């Protein structure tokens, strides 16, 4: 019998497939719908200090090899979101990951502090959303000091029972060093990767399609980028990694596990294969493992590192 369950920083997931942040997770109902379609855990769309409408449309489109977005961190703000987080915890049977973002380290702490009374299992600190405006300046995860500071400050207001995952971008030149730094700052895990900065221009219109001009790409196009990031990160850190980026099939998922991921973020695949993509990928993973004679996820983890 093949077993898909994994232990993610002490939290048991029935399967390693996690709804990635920014996809679907805008309400308890949307998260529940994803759970019903087979996800092993779900992530809430990033919550920030205050109400944000995000960018004007076009904010999302599919361009053939992937999805482009500049939704722009729309969220109702942490005060309003508390009721939704609570409702999600009450209704879900799988673990909930609460993603947070802010414009400065102090505000990350403020957001985390507001959520803590609800005792979330996991807070994912989004240090790498490319859809930021000038007020945010550079992404936190491009700057070792900034990434380290946010994680260590959030750690001070979180109980040990709440696990902190830092979501990083591979666009940092010292990506693995930043990974090591956030681990040392108290992160219980790392999520890699976020979408990759990009722009797509329509040649007939002669301008970028996204209203924000630039955005992040996700989907199949970025899978090899994600695999490289997880592969190198696995060599550097001891904490578990949620491998994210272009996972669409069971084999994609296995690739990430073999690179060293403990769990897997799935997002744009909902576009390619429907809301039940979690069930589909889980079945394909099982089929692969049966065919190849693997019994557990653990025995495949980091396998690609064998010399």
């Amino acid at each position, binding site marked *: 019998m093949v077993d898909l369950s994994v232990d993610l920083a002490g939290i048991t997931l029935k399967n390693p497939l996690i709804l990635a942040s*920014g*996809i*679907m*997770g*805008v*309400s*308890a*109902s*949307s*998260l*529940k*719908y*994803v759970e*019903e379609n087979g996800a092993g855990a779900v992530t809430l*769309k990033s919550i920030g200090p205050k*109400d*944000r*409408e*995000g960018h*004007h*449309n*076009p*904010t*999302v*489109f*599919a*361009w*053939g090899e992937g*999805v482009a*977005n500049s*939704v722009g961190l*729309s*969220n*109702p*703000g942490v005060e*309003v979101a508390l*009721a939704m987080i609570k409702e999600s915890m009450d209704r879900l049977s799988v673990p909930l990951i609460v993603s947070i973002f802010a414009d400065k380290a102090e505000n990350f702490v403020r957001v985390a502090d507001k959520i803590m009374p609800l005792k979330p299992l996991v807070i994912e600190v989004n240090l790498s959303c490319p859809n930021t405006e000038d007020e945010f300046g550079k992404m936190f995860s491009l700057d070792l000091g900034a990434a380290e500071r946010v994680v260590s400050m959030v750690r001070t207001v979180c109980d040990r029972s709440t696990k902190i995952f830092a979501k990083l971008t591979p666009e940092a030149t010292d990506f693995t060093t930043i990974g090591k730094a956030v681990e040392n700052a108290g992160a219980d895990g790392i999520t890699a990767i976020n979408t990759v900065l990009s722009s*797509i221009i*329509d040649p*007939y*219109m002669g*301008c970028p*399609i996204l*209203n924000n001009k630039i955005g992040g790409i996700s989907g199949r196009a970025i899978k090899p980028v994600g695999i490289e990031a997880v592969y190198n990160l696995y060599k550097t850190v001891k904490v578990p990694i949620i491998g994210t980026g272009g996972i669409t099939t069971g084999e994609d998922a296995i690739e990430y596990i073999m690179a060293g991921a403990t769990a897997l973020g799935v*997002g*744009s695949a*909902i*576009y390619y294969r*429907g*809301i039940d993509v979690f069930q589909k990928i889980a079945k394909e993973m099982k089929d692969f493992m049966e065919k190849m004679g693997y019994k557990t996820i653990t025995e495949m983890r980091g396998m690609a590192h064998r010399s």
Partner: protein
Amino acid sequence: MRYDKPKVVSIKKIIEENSRVKSFLFDLEIQAKPGQFVMVWIPGYDEKPFGVILKDGAGLMITVAAVGRSTKALHQMKAGNLIGIRGAYGSHFHLPSEAKSIALVAGGYGMVPLAYLAQEARKKNINVELFLGARTQKELLFASWMKEIGVKLHLSTDDGSVGHHGFVTEPFAEYVKNKQTDQVYVVGPEIMEYKVAQICYKKQVPFEVSVERYMKCGLGICGQCCVDNTGWRMCVEGPIINGEDLKKIIEFGKYHRTASGKVEYFPWVKKTKN
């Protein structure tokens, strides 16, 4: 053919329907059923969902009222100007295979998807009773087109300039009391849709309704248009919902979510939640 990246096309023809509403026609090979929508990119402004019509002999048509910044910009455009179109997206209306007579209830621009449905129904020789309401006679959309294809019109206006002086729901309620109808289709302001739904439940008439929510991706991933409590995406599982499924959408007629994801109650509902 469905487009997920905006397909840039030039406006072939513009028809002025009334002082506030224009129809835009395009040469674009696209698959779209009545009730589905396209995302229309107006460069520099916005991208918005619009109900789609594949008009016999004319092709792809969208009909837009100038109400906001981006729709006003669209109204300024001329034939030959470029816009982007992706889709068509979402669920669509169903005509029961044995249907003999159907009733359509349209409020304002809700007439757009229903006009396409009426065209398809008339081709199958189904009797179509159309309850069309608007503020005033000049704003009754597609009335002459509908008459031409043999649709039976029941008009209502807020100012009484033509037809019933009052809400479109009133002559409709009278009609279903006495007449046999196989299915009802309703598109319009949500309060009107809600009233029609209550009438249909009471009379046990099957119906389909278009549930409109703020949309971003149209691809079923951003979650913006998910409804309570099912989590269904109005760009994939919706916007066309049948009466039985509608019972599971507890927010229908009560509230919706703004661009930030915040719950906002409709003005006619007393706040009871949050």
